[in-house]
């Protein structure tokens, strides 16, 4: 395991905010293609700013802001909805232009290309020459794609520029490309482990999640451990990293010290994994092609699921009746599940068939070749764990229901703890659980499970009012019972008034005061009582809460 092979030398062409450029190229909806580069522009993803142009940044728009916040910071900002298909379609000319020099390209995402430099560098005469050629080609590809009214240089500056970097390994090359954008000229990192490590050392570990697809939680942990830069992590012994993080620590150490950019567990795919579909009738319709691709992807997905593996790099090939081909390699560091893979196939086919340089005949062959596989560390196992027939049927039905009521209406419960029955479980949309494989938390059980101090002991109420019902708790003299600051009731509760009538209290317990989060604006002071009342159909038990003199019915033991 200690033998470290230097990763192959790589070049990366990177545009930090490609969605902005694609939006301008496509013509901003309602504003026509006449876009002035000094106009602030931002792309929204899930109702939050995903990326914004330098002008918008200067005016105070930041990624992660909500629509209103962004408009508040900069009233004349142009907001465009995110559309991955558009990004991929607009990127196709750039990829094609670069492809005239380097045919073997990996597309990481629309806006970012990587390639091995060994052949091309020797052809053009060195890494420095290659970077210049790559930048020129990318720019040429962009110029052919945009309308003549738009200046491609100004357009690029909208998206924060374009950077080319060459270094050992994909991670270092990507960081070099990002650095090149700031420097304004291509960056070439000297070959060799020492130079790569020296280049990587000053980068903050947050770049791991942005570039290498590491878990955000892991990066956060590293930062809290005081390991803020790549160099800090690389300075540790790999043995200590393995002790603390297991196999992940090993991967991490290799990443930050620049000795490898693929997981050590990466496996060569079996040679017969190529999956192809030949069409007897050439397919001209885009939808039918995607549908056919879906069955291929599903078949691959089933294979990977059975083996407990995940594909990180895939080549998609399509061929028409006239022999025209579209070949692209797609890479995603965190692995592609079925939906991510079908997205990439769709992007490629969309850019090809609906692009300017469209094929002249129908597609007769579609091939998917997995190029890099690694063991699935369990993140993809996710919610649909058991994979029985019942699970598959449920997944299909849930997808349908989600289409009917919207993703937020279909939820599962995830334990998050708390002393209030309303906050012990959080309802998580199944769309979120399914998409990124986030696991549903189970309540810890067993004798060692930590208990929430101040929580009501078991049994828990079977009916929890998330909107508490206003009630009155009265004493024998028909006065509202109050709870003092020291946690004493003013008198024994005798009567409970709801909007439809009053019931006699048979027994009561409490009060249990809670004083939560006194340090911030979510501060809450309340006291809770359990009441057993005499209802028409027998005794009923309630959990009531008093806060600022007002009683609320919080839960019922139905």
């Amino acid at each position, binding site marked *: 395991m200690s033998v470290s092979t230097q990763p192959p030398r790589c070049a990366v062409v990177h545009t930090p905010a490609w969605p902005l450029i694609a939006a301008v190229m496509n013509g901003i909806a309602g504003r026509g293609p006449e876009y002035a580069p000094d106009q602030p522009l931002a792309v929204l993803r899930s109702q939050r700013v995903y990326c914004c142009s330098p002008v918008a940044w200067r005016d105070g728009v930041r990624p992660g802001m909500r629509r209103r916040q962004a408009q508040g910071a900069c009233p004349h900002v142009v907001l465009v909805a995110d559309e991955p298909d558009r990004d991929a379609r607009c990127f196709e000319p750039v990829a094609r232009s670069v492809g005239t020099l380097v045919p073997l390209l990996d597309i990481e995402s629309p806006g970012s290309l990587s390639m091995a430099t060994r052949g091309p560098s020797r052809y053009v005469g060195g890494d420095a020459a290659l970077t210049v050629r790559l930048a020129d080609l990318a720019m040429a590809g962009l110029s052919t794609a945009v309308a003549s009214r738009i200046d491609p240089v100004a357009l690029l500056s909208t998206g924060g520029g374009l950077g080319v970097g060459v270094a050992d390994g994909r991670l270092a090359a990507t960081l070099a490309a990002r650095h090149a954008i700031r420097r304004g000229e291509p960056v070439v990192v000297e070959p060799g482990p020492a130079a790569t490590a020296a280049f990587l050392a000053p980068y903050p570990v947050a770049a791991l999640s942005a570039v290498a697809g590491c878990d955000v939680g892991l990066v956060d942990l590293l930062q809290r451990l005081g390991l803020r830069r790549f160099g800090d992590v690389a300075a540790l012994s790999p043995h200590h990293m393995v002790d603390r993080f297991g196999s992940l620590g090993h991967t991490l150490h290799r990443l930050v010290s620049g000795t490898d950019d693929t997981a050590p567990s990466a496996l060569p795919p079996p040679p017969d994994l190529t999956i192809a579909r030949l069409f007897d009738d050439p397919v001209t319709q885009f939808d039918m092609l995607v549908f056919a691709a879906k069955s291929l992807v599903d078949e691959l997905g089933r294979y990977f699921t059975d083996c407990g593996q995940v594909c990180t790099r895939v080549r998609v090939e399509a061929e028409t009746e006239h022999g025209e081909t579209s070949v692209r390699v797609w890479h995603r560091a965190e692995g592609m599940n079925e939906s991510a893979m079908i997205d990439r196939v769709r992007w490629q086919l969309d850019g090809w068939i609906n692009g300017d340089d469209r094929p002249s005949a129908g597609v007769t062959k579609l091939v998917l070749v997995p190029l890099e596989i690694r063991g699935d560390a369990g993140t993809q196992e996710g*919610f649909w*764990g*058991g994979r029985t027939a*019942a*699970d598959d*049927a*449920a*997944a*299909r*039905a*849930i997808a*349908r*229901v989600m289409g*009917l*009521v*919207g993703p*937020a*209406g*279909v*939820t*599962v*419960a995830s334990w998050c703890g708390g002393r209030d*029955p309303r906050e*012990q*479980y959080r*309802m998580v949309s*199944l769309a979120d659980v399914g998409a990124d494989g986030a696991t*549903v938390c*189970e*309540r810890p059980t067993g004798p060692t499970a930590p208990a929430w101090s101040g929580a*009501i*002991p*078991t*049994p*828990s*109420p*079977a*009916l*929890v*009012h*998330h909107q508490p019902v206003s009630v009155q708790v009265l004493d024998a003299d028909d006065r509202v019972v109050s709870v003092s600051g020291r946690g*004493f*009731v003013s008198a*024994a509760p005798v009567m409970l008034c709801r909007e439809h009538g009053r019931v006699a209290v*048979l*027994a*009561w*317990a*409490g009060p249990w005061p809670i004083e939560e989060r006194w340090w911030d604006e979510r501060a809450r002071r309340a006291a809770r009582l*359990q009441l*057993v009342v005499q*209802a028409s*159909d*027998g*005794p*009923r*038990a309630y959990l009531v809460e008093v806060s600022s003199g007002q009683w609320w019915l919080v*839960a019922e*033991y*139905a």
Partner: protein
Amino acid sequence: MSVPAARRAVDLSNLRGGIPAVMAHERLLPVHPVLAPLFGVAPGDPGLVRGHTVVCSGSAALSCALAVVAAPTQVGSWAGVVGLPSVGVSAAAELGVVLSRTVFVTGASSSSASSDMAAVISALVDGVEVLVLSRQVVGSVSGGVIRKLHTRLQSRGGVLVVVDDPGSVTADVRLAATTTMWDGVGAGNGHLQRRRVSIELEVRRRGRPTRADVWLPDHRGGLSMCDEQSSGNVSSGNVLPLHRTG
């Protein structure tokens, strides 16, 4: 063209010969061991007939419905809960419902029209084996939808659980759960510990109802049999009521 009745009977019997005969009572889902005697089976044996509609009523209807849902989810069935946005998830977990296989559908409960609700229910019934509906949901869709749902359930082998009796569905199994007493609280002391519930189970066309007294929930939140030895106070030691001093 009419086929003579005798001929038709022969055809049908030929057809039936090809299908392995599975009687309704052989297609069973598990039930909670405490509820098993009520269903007429030994504890641990499955007793909930697939395709049946279970209507829970009484003051402990919701807990009772959750107790019915618990056992099937533990063996891998999925449960769908529609129109019960305020169900206590902690209580469900304590009764043994496996939450990772329980889907809560809330979106269409209030805002959307009843046709949407019908679509949601019929989509969900294809995927889950236990479908829990509130009385309001059942009341909001037409009788035709409920009949179709019933047919679908029988062919899919699912079970419909209705919380609170809406009166409009034909129940195969009726569970009436009435609270007899709450245990554990006094006058300002103790805390709710367990509830004695009298459950009466009536299966359509199966003679007299069966009845049992259970703790639902018991002091751990689960469901347990209420025998005479344990009917005393669960708390050990003397509990003295708190008095205000000073």
